[in-house]
């Protein structure tokens, strides 16, 4: 089983650049058998969504 530390680094990299075909395969195979890393991957997507929404909230909140 591939190491979770390396896979989660790739998942994170995937948010900043297009992964190579080989990298995408490694990630996909690993996520299929590791629920912790699969959770990590899903949560990264949510964190991106929250972060963008967070800025919108800050921008519309004029009380500060």
């Amino acid at each position, binding site marked *: 089983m591939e190491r979770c530390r390396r896979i989660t680094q790739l998942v994170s990299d995937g948010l900043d650049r297009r992964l190579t075909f080989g990298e995408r395969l490694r990630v996909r195979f690993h996520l299929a058998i590791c629920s912790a890393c699969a*959770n990590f991957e899903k*949560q990264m997507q949510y964190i991106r969504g929250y972060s963008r929404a967070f800025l919108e909230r800050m921008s519309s909140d004029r009380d500060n």
Partner: protein
Amino acid sequence: MESVIDDKLLAKERKSLYLYAMMRLRDADLAEDAVQDTLIAAVQALDRFEQRSSLRTWLMAILRNKITDIVRSRARELPIGDLLDENASEDDVEEFFQTDGHWDGAAAPRSWGQPEYAAERAQFWTVMERCIEGLPLRTGEVFFLREVVGESIDDICKNLGVTQTNCSVMLFRARARLRMCLEEKWFKGAP
């Protein structure tokens, strides 16, 4: 040419600028001053603003310069330790993993249930803000620019003078840390 940017538009950016300044300076008064100076400088230089970059990116660049000035002048007053002490905590994320690279039991990401509902709760956003503020200085800055402001990783690395590899590791650590913080402070207790 008539400027499409007015005070109202600048004021809209105020809070995100403030949060960024707060993250870098960890001092409410200094952060407030830096934002104030940035907005004044922006108003004075509006004619130099090029539409091809976004207003936010432009303001962020001015703010970064202001903060650099403040940090420099403060470095002369403060003992060096105050500026370096965050390095100690940068490596915490590596402790989420065992030495063989597998998750360390308690740190393994758990299911968040239905995370889409979190965004509807006002309290969640307070937790989000605290978790972002709690990131170590440098890590937090990279995360903020990448995920919150949405700058490209190339721009961030270039502006901060960090190599691409280093940038990726910093982003990974920031994301992993924020993930852990949200899980502990919100999702663990959420229904």
